[in-house]
């Protein structure tokens, strides 16, 4: 199994330079994978103009679940979903080792839409685990497929999947910088801003409708907020000096930002309606990379007030500040899980930069990666994976690692990728 994975990985690597599209390689996986069969979805109307889109549902679901590292996908090519799932012989699938079987069908619906139905069946106990239907235009079938993968993941593993989220990142190609938004599987990538000058630090608003980021188009860092729906944007922090590191408050009304207008880099609270910036940190040390805890009670940030850059946390209730990281001389770029229990950050060890995670309750820290130039961690919506950027052969790629460090994936694309952040 491991050998096959390695061979597949080598093929992926060999294919990389010629492919313009993003490819995904899997490094490692869970020790107990669930054997799962996804049968090709039955197209009720074979002459449908959307036949290829319908075929792709099966491929997307299979790819999502397959690369998660939690499932072993059984070969399905010779099978078809029966018109009625009652007619499926589950004992046959039990004999080939399947724990669960996903079958589905697609039929025309009102308003030129399609209805996608699926059933998740327990092959061992021969029972039904779930059955759902989605109605959507043909152009959205990829989204439907990600939703189905989420459902299967949740039913079989008891926790929500993160296949239907979106990611934002910066792509550097041909000397230009592009802010892109893509599905979590890196398909459907759309460039929303392009500039000849650097773009960094994209941050999703809590409702996923806006992105804040830093642009250097004015020969200095300025914080912008852009609405995804219409592409409209405005400079929200363009004070004297540098303006950077935007982080949204959980209610979406404020940004924590780093400004140098009064002293050196310090953290301010920026009211997005009034435009007023209120100073939050004081003292001559460098304070930057603020991030709110999801419950709005804490602001985590990076500071060198203790001599080396470390992560601190300030109470938004009483203003008390205490140090969070102690191990090593360089801990930066804090990111918090949605449940507020885990802190991901960049940890330097022997001049390499790794992604590490800390369980905040116990203070227990674990280094998750063995690559050397890891940056910009952010949690998946289900808190089970961390998205980050790293360098492979001098080129920026995006990667994910599970919070226990066991499952890793890489998302590659021609050009240099950096500054990823996972949205809803």
């Amino acid at each position, binding site marked *: 199994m491991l050998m096959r994975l390695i061979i597949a990985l080598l093929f992926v690597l060999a294919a990389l330079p010629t492919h313009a599209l993003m490819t995904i390689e899997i490094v490692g996986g869970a020790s107990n994978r669930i054997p799962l069969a996804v049968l090709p979805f039955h197209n009720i109307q074979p002459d449908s103009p959307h036949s290829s889109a319908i075929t792709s549902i099966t491929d997307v679901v299979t790819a999502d679940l397959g690369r998660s590292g939690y499932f072993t996908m059984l070969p399905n090519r010779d099978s078809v979903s029966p018109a009625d799932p009652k007619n499926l012989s589950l004992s046959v699938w039990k004999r080939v080792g399947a724990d669960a079987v996903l079958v589905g069908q697609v039929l025309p619906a009102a308003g030129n839409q399609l209805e996608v139905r699926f059933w998740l069946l327990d092959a061992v106990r021969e029972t039904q685990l779930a059955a*759902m239907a989605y*109605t959507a235009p043909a152009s959205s079938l990829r989204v439907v497929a990600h939703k189905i993968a989420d459902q299967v993941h949740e039913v079989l593993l008891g926790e929500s999947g993160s296949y239907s989220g979106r990611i934002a990142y910066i792509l550097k190609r041909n000397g230009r910088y592009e802010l892109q938004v893509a599905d979590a599987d890196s398909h459907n990538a759309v460039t929303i801003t392009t500039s*000849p000058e650097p773009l960094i630090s994209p941050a999703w608003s809590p409702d996923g409708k806006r992105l804040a980021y830093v642009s250097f188009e004015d020969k200095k860092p300025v914080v912008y907020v852009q609405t995804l729906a219409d592409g409209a944007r405005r400079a929200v922090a363009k004070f004297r000096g540098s303006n950077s590191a935007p982080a949204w408050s959980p209610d979406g009304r404020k940004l924590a930002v780093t400004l140098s207008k009064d002293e050196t880099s310090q953290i301010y609270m920026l009211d997005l309606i009034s435009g007023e910036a209120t100073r939050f940190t004081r003292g001559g040390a460098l304070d930057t990379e603020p991030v709110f805890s999801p419950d709005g009670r804490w602001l985590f940030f990076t500071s060198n007030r203790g001599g080396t850059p470390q992560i601190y946390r300030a109470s938004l209730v009483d203003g008390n500040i205490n140090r969070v990281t102690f191990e090593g001389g360089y801990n*930066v770029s804090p990111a918090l899980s949605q449940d507020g229990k885990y802190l991901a950050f960049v940890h330097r060890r022997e001049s390499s930069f790794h992604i590490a995670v800390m369980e905040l309750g116990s203070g227990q820290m674990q280094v998750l990666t063995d690559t050397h130039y890891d*940056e910009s961690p952010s949690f998946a919506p289900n808190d089970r994976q961390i998205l980050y950027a790293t360098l492979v052969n001098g080129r920026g790629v995006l990667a994910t690692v599970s919070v226990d460090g066991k499952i890793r994936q890489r998302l590659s694309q021609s050009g240099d990728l950096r500054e990823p952040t996972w949205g809803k």
Partner: protein
Amino acid sequence: MKYLLHISLISIFLSGCADTPMKEASIEDRELIATTSTTSAGADAAPITAAVISDKSYAASSSTDPSASTSGMRDTDIAAKALATDANKVTTGVVTQGVTTQSPEATPLAGTNATPDSAVGSNSESGKPDRTDILKFEAQPVLDPKDPQSPLAQRRLLFDYDSSAIRDEYRTLLEMHAKFLIKENSARLILQGHADERGSREYNLALGQRRAESVYNALNLLGVPDAQMEAVSLGEEKPVVEGHDDSAWSQNRRTEILYQGE
């Protein structure tokens, strides 16, 4: 001799000019628009609806529950068509803009000392330094930032690892700039701090800011008023030397002095 000197001066001057293209117009916003025209007006009406099929049997129920519609799906309907044309625009933009983002003055200035003497020496690096010229500048330095022969053409201060302390070798350089700025009180400076590529981009931005502020404070102490200067940082985003070793990093940890209009 003089001829070589002129050639190198002209090339430096031209490369300096190439660094200031009209970039304002090249920032483009992209729209994420719903592709499906079926829900054109009611953009909030979800194009995808989800419903639970009866759990009791395998048979499909045709009754779907529209109230279970998942809202917020609109954003995922991304216009692939609009993108394709945008991508073409980007490519054409790249051809004209891509090269200019580099700092062409890097090569001639790299590794030079900051004293006025060596500044002249480096400008005539294609030949041997002209001794009479050096003597002339020592006698009466030309304080004009636009003149590449002037000591004010020295604009780069390098820093040690994780440090924002100004090295002694830059004292004369800063004094020359201060002298000029006090005399020409309409002149404006932008001090751009930079960091090497290692570590977090945002933390490196703060480090670069600190390096710019060091130079700002030094000039301030030499009598240059706040109103004439702004300290900003470009972090690790604009290296002068592409490379992943100590020699590249030592060149990239720096503060650049830019006069307004440059």
